[in-house]
């Protein structure tokens, strides 16, 4: 740079000095997150208090209680104090990890969340990996073969994919693969035959570690259908985005320069074009995180997959409002963190915004 400071090379591993701009970038993003986080906490806090009905009943789960019990609970729950004091208490609780306790299980919400989160994470990771591994090549091929039947079929499939009501798609797959063909199971994460300690919470890893014969295969068979269902929309969106980004990039001057250097088409497309096309696509992938979590709610419900999506839906129906409140907070916090990571990754890939 003009002031003599070093910059990043194309590979992350070539990073020399120059960590400072990246750290500044991260802290900048974090600073923006704080007001958002506070806003989210305010919403989570207000949620119970906005519900119709008596907050004491709602928060404790006890429907019928004597007046003394009511006053006692009110004091216990801190509901007799001014609203702003309650809010600060709530914030204080958040910071120390107290997200309330489930009315149904009586366990801290945070504990239940940590127990169930790996299941959702495993499913979501598998889904996004499938979506990226299939979606990006599909988009590249469709762009390169623009206008051919291959392009049109790929995009046609993609269109169906993101128009799909995934709760129905899951049911259809169950009817066909589980019911009619009998190939895959319907619900849960692994066959009841297997029992081994939870090390990572990821069934795929734990089953491998356990060394029990057939456990891994079982875990995979339970994971396939939910992954396919959850990956459908992100896959379609990523394929379309990649195609449109590639089309734009392929018309750019620097692609013509790359060709004029006598580089092979693979190199022109796979290195020169793709690198630039991936920039908007990475943003899309980042946005898909929220979509994934929304989709997880439906997918987990259909496949009885014991993750946080199903947990939230069940809690809404069971009126376990502590869980809903705490869950909202935790999920929102998680999304914000993931978005931050995506932003940082984006900074690595796109040199222009680093400077």
């Amino acid at each position, binding site marked *: 740079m003009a002031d003599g400071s*070093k*910059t990043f090379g*194309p590979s992350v591993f070539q990073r020399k000095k120059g960590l400072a701009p990246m750290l500044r970038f991260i802290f900048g993003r974090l600073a923006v997150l704080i007001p958002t986080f506070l806003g989210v906490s305010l919403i989570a806090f207000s949620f119970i208090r906005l519900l119709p009905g008596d907050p004491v009943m709602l928060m404790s789960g006890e429907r019928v209680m004597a007046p003394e019990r009511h006053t006692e609970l009110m004091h216990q729950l801190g509901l007799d104090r001014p609203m702003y004091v309650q809010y600060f208490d709530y914030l204080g609780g958040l910071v120390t990890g107290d997200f309330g306790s489930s009315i149904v299980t009586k366990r801290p919400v945070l504990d239940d969340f940590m127990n169930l989160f790996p299941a959702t994470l495993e499913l979501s990771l598998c889904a996004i990996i499938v979506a990226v591994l299939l979606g990006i090549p599909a988009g590249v091929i469709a762009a390169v073969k623009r206008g051919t039947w291959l392009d049109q079929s790929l995009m046609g499939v993609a269109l169906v994919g993101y128009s799909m009501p995934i709760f129905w798609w899951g049911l259809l797959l169950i009817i066909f693969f589980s019911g009619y063909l009998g190939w895959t199971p319907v619900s849960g994460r692994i066959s009841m035959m297997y029992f081994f300690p939870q090390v990572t919470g990821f069934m795929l890893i734990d089953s491998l570690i356990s060394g029990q014969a057939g456990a891994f295969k079982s875990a995979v068979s339970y994971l396939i259908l939910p992954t396919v269902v959850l990956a459908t929309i992100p896959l379609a969106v990523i394929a379309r985005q990649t195609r449109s980004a590639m089309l734009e990039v392929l018309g750019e001057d620097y692609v013509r320069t790359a*060709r004029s*250097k*006598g580089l092979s*088409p693979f190199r022109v497309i796979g290195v*020169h074009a793709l*690198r*630039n096309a991936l920039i908007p696509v990475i943003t899309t992938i980042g946005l898909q995180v929220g979509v994934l979590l929304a989709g997880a709610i439906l997918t987990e419900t259909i496949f009885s997959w014991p993750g946080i999506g199903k947990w939230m839906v069940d809690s809404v129906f069971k009126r376990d409002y502590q869980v809903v409140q705490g869950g909202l907070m935790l999920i929102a916090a998680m999304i914000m963190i993931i978005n931050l990571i995506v932003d940082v990754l984006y900074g690595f890939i796109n040199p222009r915004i680093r400077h």
Partner: protein
Amino acid sequence: MSLFEIENLVVEFQTAAGPFRAVDGVSMKVNAGEVLAIVGESGSGKSVSMLAAMGLLPWTAKVTADKLLFNGIDLLGLSPSDRRKIVGKDIAMIFQEPVASLNPCFTVGFQIEEVLRIHLGLDKKARRARAIELFDLVGIPNPAERLGHFPHQMSGGQCQRVMIAIALSCNPKLLIADEPTTALDVTIQKQILDLLMRLQAEHGMGLIIITHNMGVVAETADRVIVQYKGRKIEEADVLSLFESPKSEYTRALLSALPDNATGDRLPTIAEFLSDDQIFAGAVR
């Protein structure tokens, strides 16, 4: 044997409104060490003919010619992989928008070294050394440091120097420069043109300069081809063209230059000639 020879080149594009002939039967020869300027208005097909020779046109273009020879090799008949061995190595091209012509995601060092690796097979150290040598050659200060910069960190003039360096990296026999200075500041234009001419003389390359600027033609060319709407109108050595242009169109072009203006209004070509008149007056 001439270095580069085209005979009766026709380039047709498929468009939504039917086929469109961008280049209609153009012929030319360039010898080693010679500077040829192709001049014409926008839409005259001057860039398209050169892009066709390099194989850089999109799939919607149909290229036919009686002859399209480079160093005796028939470019049209080559397989794509054989053609790629020549393009970028023995024939190189630089373009109009230098900053946009460089890949924003890679350092300029990466972009020049990849040519060295793929065409010359140099190892990492040799590549680095040669890249620095090339940057020096084109007048980029602090070459070693510059190699790690990205195109958006450099000015238009510097990016064009990088493009020239990339083009020269494998010592090409023919360099095609498509409007190399049009997008640059006037002061930088002169520097880049001087650089091109100096390098051309030092390396004994054939140089084809495409431009719409008669001033550039005057300063650089040995011979000139005037094109209009895909056809060649006149071909002559530069002095003859300027002193005694044979076709009406060339005369009209020259008199449309601000320097040549007399009277109150700047004359336009349309006032002089219709398309048919221009084509009829073509001196082949």
